[in-house]
């Protein structure tokens, strides 16, 4: 034996708060500091929830009730977790189990397979092949379990008996994602950049919008300063200031602007934009201001005297 195999698939370091996996513990700790131990108010990063709740109480005079960005049930502030330290034992086991289920120790099995395969008699092989062909044609909805000798995965596919060594892939059970998806509620989640800066204020400027408007043509010495008329409608200059998409900032803003039409339905204006449960706008009527609504009420309505 040349190499010693790993006894079982070792799970990567993972974050207890959001069930996300990391290649290495250093990254995990950075993630936890940035995601879960960061003060939502002032973005100060702490090392543990304890530190965060003390900071919250002392600096902001409020009690921290949940860990930011944590999945449900994992947002307690009572457990001190740093990297992989402090993770409750049962969760560690559960995660390990989940990990093993999602990534069964395939290589090992397949290694064993050849040996077993060779014990199949030609008859059995033929039978399996026939069954497989039937299955492929869609006649047999579910293949019956394979008889006596332990059914190697490869057999379903009528792989030539000697060596299903080639691609071990096809023999695997239906594809499963390598880790369970982090139970909803984490849209910007593990993949892809969140569409909006997840950080409060000082995050990277999320949109440099409205950046480069080219100067309106007739600035300063415009045509008619004293022209007291509504004919000086802003439309022409508005139109003329649109075309040259001068800077990148401008084009970025333009595209982001295009994403939302002027009056998005109040229900789901930007689906994955905001945080987990989707905060609700207290006032979401984009077309009319609160003052207009209020002013239309009988007690405020203006009745012209003349």
């Amino acid at each position: 034996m040349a190499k010693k195999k790993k006894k079982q698939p070792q799970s990567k370091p993972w974050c207890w708060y959001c069930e996300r996996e990391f290649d290495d513990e250093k990254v995990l700790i950075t993630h936890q500091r940035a995601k879960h131990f960061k003060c939502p108010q002032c973005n100060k990063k702490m090392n543990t929830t304890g530190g965060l709740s003390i900071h919250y109480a002392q600096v902001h005079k409020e009690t921290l009730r949940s860990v930011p960005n944590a999945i449900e049930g994992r947002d307690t502030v009572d457990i001190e977790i740093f990297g992989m330290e402090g993770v409750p034992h049962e969760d560690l086991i559960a995660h390990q189990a989940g990990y093993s289920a999602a990534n069964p120790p395939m290589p090992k099995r397949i290694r064993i397979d050849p040996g077993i395969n060779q014990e199949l008699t030609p008859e059995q092989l033929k039978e399996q092949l026939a069954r497989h062909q039937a299955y492929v044609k869609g006649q047999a909805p579910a293949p019956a379990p394979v008889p006596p000798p332990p059914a190697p995965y490869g057999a379903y596919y009528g792989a030539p008996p000697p060596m299903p060594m080639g691609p071990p892939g096809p023999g695997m059970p239906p594809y499963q994602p390598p880790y369970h998806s982090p139970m909803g509620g984490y849209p910007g989640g593990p993949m892809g950049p969140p569409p909006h800066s997840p950080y409060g204020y000082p995050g990277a400027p999320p949109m440099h919008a409205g950046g480069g408007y080219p100067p309106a043509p007739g600035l300063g010495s415009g045509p008619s300063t004293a022209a007291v008329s509504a004919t000086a409608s802003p439309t022409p200059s508005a139109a003329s200031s649109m075309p040259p998409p001068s800077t990148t900032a401008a084009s970025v803003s333009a595209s982001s602007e295009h994403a939302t039409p002027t009056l998005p339905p109040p229900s789901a204006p930007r689906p994955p934009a905001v945080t987990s449960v989707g905060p609700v706008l207290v006032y979401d009527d984009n077309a009319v201001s609160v003052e207009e609504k209020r002013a239309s009420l009988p007690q405020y309505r203006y009745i012209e005297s003349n």
Partner: protein
Amino acid sequence: MNQPPKDFEVSQPPTDGITELSFSPVADFLGVSSWDNQVRIYEVQPDGSTVGKAMYAHEAPVLCCAWSKDGSKLASGGADKAARLYDLQSGQAQQIGQHDGPIRSMRWVDTPGQPILATGGWDKMLKYWDCRQPNPIASTQLPERCYAMDALYPMLVVGCADRHILIYNLNNPTTPFKSTQSPLKWQTRCVSCFPAGNGFALGSIEGRVAIQYVEEKDASGNFSFKCHRDSSQVYSVNAISFHPVHGTFSTAGSDGTFNFWDKDSKQRLKMFPTVGAPITATTFNRNGTIFAYAVGYDWSKGHQSAPATPKNQIFLHAAKEEDVKQRAPKKR
């Protein structure tokens, strides 16, 4: 621990919601416009107490008010479509302007010596008045209803419905210098110019503030940030006021909190716990030592949610130097 800030409460406040607060540029006189059709002027004493100084009426809710540059007059505009001017000396109010719809916002845009009042209304008009003649000295069509405006000579920024933003150079007051869309995706709620005069801040109903520079060369400094929201609800940013000395600014929202920010170091300088009801208007006094804020239901949850016994209060917060001074950027 969670006590409201110990701020001075203005005695004899308006009996209905407060729409705008304005401090005189020359004295600690606070002008207050209200849904109860009245405009009130309070004098703030050095000890923080207030004395009612004057009051005059519109025929409908008053939506805005603004002190003239010399502090001798207070202008106001309201749902009665009229702009009125109160002379502090004579104690008389007279109508100086007229729109075809309620006047939502107004600012003095004059060069020293020649008072000119700009008014914006829901009739989609922007009008300029010299307070002497019944007709505007200039007027121009806005693309939409005016929701907010702020001016710092020679710049006038008008925020309209449908996210239109118009920037006027007051040397050419009828043609927008720039006509653009708000970088925020939701309705514009308030506009406030930087004291440096090179840009402005916008607040939207979706708890977000955009910092915008006017000149293209500064456009890389544009950004926006979220505020006035909790895990489940997003409140509107009702008011933004810049500190006249330090160039920092306040935001106040329907969530009943106000914060002080520094846009240059992108930091929150100070946050305050909720005052229990929405903050509808804010302003700093002329030297930035007093921060006035109005508390009362802002209608953001509709008529049904209006409290049975509406409370309308004005508080004067003594702005601490360290809370409003610019800060060096934080290491991140």
